[in-house]
């Protein structure tokens, strides 16, 4: 059973379900995507878990956590079109299994004590900065991640995907404690906040306890939430060489003027047929099964970015052939048959039904349905059953090739 509890500065979206042995609370902080704040926000959030005015050092924080039966807690950042969502979450054992009075009160208090009482110091700042730069270097060591970032920055320097979500080296290097403190104040007071809460039998008293400790006094709720980006149109072929044994190919197609249903359902199906993770998806079948030129090839549709990306890794000598086969396969979507549709719908349904077996998926579906961004699982299942081949084929007229990027691997592959 879902219920929204409305408070002055935020909402709590709750779901009562007996499926899980844990409770999940997620505090989602929404902000407009801002290149300049990527590094400082990531740094600030990491520092939240390092030092605290109440619990002191990171190992004291961890010890307290273990005392509370070791809830799984941390933060996660993601992008939704023109918005960035930072989520601080805590998944803890259902209080009914714990024979301790006030366990629930203690654990919620712990979470909000962590959030509201950070201790930012120079030592922690240097530690986090060094870790982030190291991670940045590791990201760029991975060919597919490197290629993805290089592609997007070649296409458009203002594309949010042209830079890792943790920021870039210069932004990280020059951060000061004052920057962190300013970011914290802005983040806590100016973010739009929506809280998710999933567990067995959510009682009003549980909500009261969250409200007692949450202490968000200045925030505004999300209203008319619209994260969709403008589409960029460009037509270019990019190429770069690096010492890798295998080449990476990225191709991007714009998906413009899609209706709400097309964005949420029809493209889901189109993408699954074209480049889903099944060996029988058209791209896999063409490139891997029929021609043996790759281990895997997939397509990814992002409705907030209005585009479809196709990604594969192949040998240098097969790059042109891979591109040719990909174009052929995309155009071949015009020859969809009933079997293609039915099989893809079945695969999608399996994934959709399975999403309710995961507490994080449950929370996410609930929130974005409440924000009117998605259909819920039951609605999607129903719409998939009614979709026609023509509706899917029509999308081919709306999908236009944009650009491609090849990271050519020039290292000898012999082991």
């Amino acid at each position: 059973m879902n219920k929204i509890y409305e408070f002055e500065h935020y909402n709590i979206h709750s779901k009562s379900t007996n499926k899980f042995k844990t409770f999940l609370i997620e505090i989602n902080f929404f902000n407009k995507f801002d290149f300049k704040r990527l590094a400082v926000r990531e740094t600030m959030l990491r520092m939240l878990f390092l030092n605290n005015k109440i619990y002191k050092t990171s190992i004291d924080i961890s010890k307290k956590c273990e005392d509370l039966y070791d809830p799984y807690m941390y933060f996660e950042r993601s992008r939704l079109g023109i918005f960035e969502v930072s989520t601080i979450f805590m998944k803890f054992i259902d209080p009914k299994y714990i024979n301790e009075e006030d366990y629930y009160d203690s654990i919620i208090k712990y979470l909000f004590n962590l959030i509201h009482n950070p201790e930012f110091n120079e030592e922690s700042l240097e530690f986090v900065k060094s870790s982030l730069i190291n991670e940045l270097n590791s990201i760029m060591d991975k060919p597919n991640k490197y290629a993805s970032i290089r592609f997007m920055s070649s296409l458009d320097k203002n594309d949010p995907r042209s830079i890792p979500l943790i920021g870039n080296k210069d932004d990280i290097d020059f951060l000061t404690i004052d920057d962190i403190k300013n970011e914290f104040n802005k983040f806590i007071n100016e973010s739009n906040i929506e809280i998710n809460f999933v567990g067995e039998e959510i009682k009003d008293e549980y909500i009261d306890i969250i409200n007692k400790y949450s202490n968000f006094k200045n925030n505004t709720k999300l209203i008319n939430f619209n994260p969709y980006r403008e589409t960029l149109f460009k037509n270019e072929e990019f190429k770069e060489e690096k010492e890798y044994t295998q080449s990476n190919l990225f191709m991007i197609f714009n998906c413009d003027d899609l209706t709400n249903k097309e964005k949420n359902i029809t493209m889901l199906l189109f993408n699954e047929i074209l480049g889903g993770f099944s060996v029988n998806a058209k791209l896999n079948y063409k490139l891997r099964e029929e021609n043996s030129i790759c281990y895997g090839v997939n397509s990814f549709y992002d409705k907030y970015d209005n585009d479809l990306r196709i990604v594969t890794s192949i040998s240098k000598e097969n790059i042109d052939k891979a591109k040719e086969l990909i174009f052929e396969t995309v155009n071949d979507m015009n020859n969809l048959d009933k079997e293609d549709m039915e099989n893809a719908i079945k695969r999608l349904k399996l994934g959709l039904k399975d999403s309710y077996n995961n507490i994080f998926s449950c929370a996410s579906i609930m929130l974005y349905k409440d924000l009117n961004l998605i259909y819920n699982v039951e609605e999607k299942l129903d719409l998939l059953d009614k979709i026609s081949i023509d509706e899917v084929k029509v999308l081919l007229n709306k999908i236009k090739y944009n650009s491609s990027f090849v990271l050519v691997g020039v290292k000898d592959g012999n082991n």
Partner: protein
Amino acid sequence: MEIINIKNVNEKVYHEILPSGLNVYIYTSELTNTYDMKLVVHVGSRDNHFKVNGKEVRIPNGVAHFLEHLTFNTKDGTAEDYYSKKGAYINASTSFDNTTYSCSCNDLFLDNLIYMLDFVTNPYYTSELVEKERGIILEEILMHMNDVDEKFYYKFCDNIFVNDTNKYQIGGIDIDVKSITLDDIVNTYNCFYKKNNMDLVLTGNIDVNETINKLIEWDKKAIEKSIIENISDEEPDDVNRSELTYKDNVSSNKMFIGYKVNKKNSKLNDIEFDLYSSILLDLMFGESSDMRLMCEKEQFVDGYVDGFFINGFNHRVLSIEFESDNLDYAYKKIDQYIKKFKINIEDLERKIKASLARIIISFENPERYGSSLVNNLIKYGRVIDNYYDLLKNVDINTLNDILEMYKKASLTYIKLLPKK
């Protein structure tokens, strides 16, 4: 049929051994709408020299993985074709010590189960299929070769193990894959793909009696049992190489350190040894460990130090991974830390308390519990029904004995430096 009661958490696993020797384990839950099936064949990348029914066989590295790819082919097409039409998901993976076929679905559970058992136990291999798959696997190998961290890991394994075949890459390297023949495939299949060398793990809202009856009926098409004996040259307790330094396309200095012990030198059984080892690892390198604070305050490594175990047939290797501008200094600090480490009783009790909650939570997702059940069957050949008691009875003297083993272990390290 045996009912295995998982102590203290009010859960149970049903266990049946079919006439062919196939072990079936069923965990039921009404709270999930997904059926999950895992068929574990006890053959992996480390099985390249063995005796079957008295006959000695040697094969190149990577055969088990190649065989896994080929098994999806049937006379009428592929297993994926079948499952696509049924709305089910099928996949497989090969590791050092097993090949596991996995299927999940929302309905037609018994049909999908029987089909999986059929296609795995009824091979269809031709020279054409071998050549087609060889091309795909070579691309997969290239993809792995692009991963500097993976290469680094295998070089570390080579430092550790002399003869233990757990050191080889699961899919083999390109010369292995190019040399695999149809005969290698067929011989390996005939040796290892026997029902008495398999475990079947099922989770979901399952009717146990109906399922067992269906399986017994299917099992009537029995295949002869086989007696498999792995041949491995004895693995010494000493490491293969005490150190190695090399360069590759990385941006920072990386290092692995390994402490190799022989678990047979302790009085504990395998389950207990691994439990005590993992508690030690958590105490030394976990989130509430002194090492974490040292990393933050002294910053002798980039970020934190990570600890994990590498498993050989009889050896366990406590492995530490880190990056640092000064690898030698970091290595000395970490090694000294381990050599001087003392167990704090309060820390131990807190860890045990936290672990007890995790046991309850492990049953939250039936599919995930199925995966952990598979891991236990592969490593120990049984369901662990007394993990709660084992934890509560952890003995500090024994823990100290295991700690001493790691302190006196044979040591190796490997450094990876940037090319530029």
